[in-house]
């Protein structure tokens, strides 16, 4: 199902009738389950005082997140945001990096210098977000322009953002730049109806965020954010379109975050009606039901997966908890990469 959004604008699309292969679906489910269980572990580690600072969870958003990560390849650029544990795993981040960063291990990619979701390996195309919402959009554009200079084709840059983040100037400037340069950029907006406690009604006044695509002159896609099949279909289409010269793609998902903004927040502002609506359904349970209904896997097989994941999480946590913390005495306290520049006392 493709809709012409407006006369001289690019089209707005939805998932449509594209079929998703069962093995891709099950692979995505496993990553979602891993993200869910890993995040539950992170929440427990926070409660027991092992994690310092915020813990930001993506409960309810795993289907959307994984659907982007799973369609990216090695060599692509990926700049995830706060609720993208599933996408990070799909892009190839092991749970070791996540646990090391949350637990402040000196051996992690951030070495205690940054924490929680502010992690990545930029040299491997896996950008480390800064907190300032919207800032990653133009950074991914820059990476894509660098690749264009080098003559690389068939690559994609992708980043994620929430409904609240779409109100920043940075988001607008980045998307506009991408549109001008016709970059292979995919921006996935998780509209979980709230930015912290702020509802959509105080965030934007357009009918639907996907309509913004028209203003930028790029393609917009709508997706049902808790429906794994729809997420996989739409993201497959959007990523493929970007990869094959279709220019920037704006994907907007409607969903609900099934947990507070961070560990301290009980999300009491989310209404009962929203929780009971289709938006409030848990993508992980829906996906599991689908797998069982279609008999792609049995309950026993799914239980075995869960066991395997839990074992890996426990083993990795135990390992990371034994790792050294950063040592302030050994820390160089130098913010510069250039050797003669930091000779200043």
């Amino acid at each position: 199902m493709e809709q012409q959004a407006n006369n001289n604008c690019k089209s707005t699309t939805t998932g449509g009738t594209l079929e998703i292969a069962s093995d891709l679906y099950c692979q995505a489910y496993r990553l979602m389950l891993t993200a869910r269980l890993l995040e539950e572990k992170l929440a427990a580690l926070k409660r027991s005082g092992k994690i310092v600072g915020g813990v930001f969870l993506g409960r309810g958003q795993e289907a959307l997140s994984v659907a982007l990560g799973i369609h990216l390849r090695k060599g692509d650029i990926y700049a995830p945001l706060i609720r993208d544990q599933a996408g990070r795993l799909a892009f190839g981040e092991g749970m070791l990096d996540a646990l090391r960063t949350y637990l402040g291990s000196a051996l992690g990619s951030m070495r205690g210098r940054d924490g929680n979701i502010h992690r990545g390996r930029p040299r491997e195309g896996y950008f480390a977000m800064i907190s300032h919402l919207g800032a990653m959009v133009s950074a991914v554009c820059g990476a894509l322009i660098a690749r264009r200079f080098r003559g690389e084709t068939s690559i994609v840059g992708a980043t994620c953002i929430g409904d609240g983040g779409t109100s920043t100037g940075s988001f607008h400037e980045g998307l506009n730049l991408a549109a001008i340069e016709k970059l292979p950029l995919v921006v996935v907006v998780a509209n979980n109806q709230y930015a912290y406690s702020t509802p959509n009604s105080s965030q934007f006044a357009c009918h639907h965020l996907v309509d913004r695509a028209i203003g930028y002159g790029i393609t917009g896609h709508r997706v049902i954010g808790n429906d794994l099949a729809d997420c996989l279909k739409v993201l497959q289409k959007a990523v493929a379109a970007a990869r094959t010269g279709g220019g920037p793609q704006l994907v907007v998902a409607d969903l609900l975050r099934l947990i507070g903004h961070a560990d301290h927040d009980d999300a009491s502002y989310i209404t009962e009606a929203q929780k009971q609506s289709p938006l409030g359904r848990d993508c992980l349970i829906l996906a599991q039901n689908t797998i069982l209904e279609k008999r792609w896997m049995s309950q026993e097989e799914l239980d075995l997966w869960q066991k395997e994941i839990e074992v890996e999480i426990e083993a990795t946590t135990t390992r990371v908890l034994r790792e050294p913390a950063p040592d302030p005495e050994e820390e160089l306290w130098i913010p510069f990469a250039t050797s003669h520049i930091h000779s200043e006392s």
Partner: protein
Amino acid sequence: MTSITYLEAIRAAQAHALKEDSRVFIYGQDVGAFGGAFKATKNLAKEFPGRVMDSPISEDAMIGMAIGAAIEGMRPIVEMQFADFSTCGLNQIANHAATLFYRTEVPCPLVVRLPSGGTSGGGPFHSQSLEAIYAYFPGLVVMTPGTVEDAYTMLLEAINIDDPVIFCEHKFLYYHLKAESLPTTALPANKARVTRPGRDATIVTYSAMLHESLAAAAELSQDGYEIEVVDLRSVKPLDTDTILASVARTGRLLVVSEAFPWGGVAAEVIARVTAEGFGLLDAPPQRLNAKDTPVPYHPALWGTHRPTASTIASALHRLLKL
């Protein structure tokens, strides 16, 4: 004999870098076919097709784009149309570019060129000197060249440095300041230079104020005073050693800066000299900044708002009597 201006030196440095290093590209408003608001990129788009790119009026995204490109191994030069507009890109500079290496161990080699400082008629939004804002943030190098030669060699060094460099080039010097030829040797950007040796007092200054200070020093030499003038060249890193060595010779310090007074480069220099060289001082260190108001438009007001050779000379006379 031909001569080259400060502005031409900046253009020449960019042309050289584009020629020598395929990782270099330029991004900014009107920098392409038009050659930039000040013509600092004149003809470069033609000479280096595809590598001098016009940007939308999106300072945040311009810097963000440069950061992403730098991560991927490029050496972007971003031209801000005026330094004043760089505040719209402050977040990407201060929170993204400046923190990247410390956080991730991935260098962020980009240069942001800021056409800085006052010119007659510039007014509040086309005149500011913002070096202190950028120097505040760990991870940024801030260069403030005051000569044609430095404009050339320091811009080349800025492009080669693996860190984000805020390159504050002074608009007042663009056309006025001339040299006979481009230099073939360079003092590293992190070193200050004793431009004029002296005995009775030290002026520490940089950028366009170097020339006002040299004029004031010349004026005082007629009264028999020998004023030493130290050109910081870069405000971050700050070459405290050269400053202290000069104060050790003269015992008196005046810091001159065109920027607003509150918490700026002049305050930092005085704090360091007071903390590390208190015993070298024969008199309380002094500073002369622009006034603590927005930069006024009218030439009569502007000429009084910023330090000039004559107000610097008066400040020196006061300092010598302290």
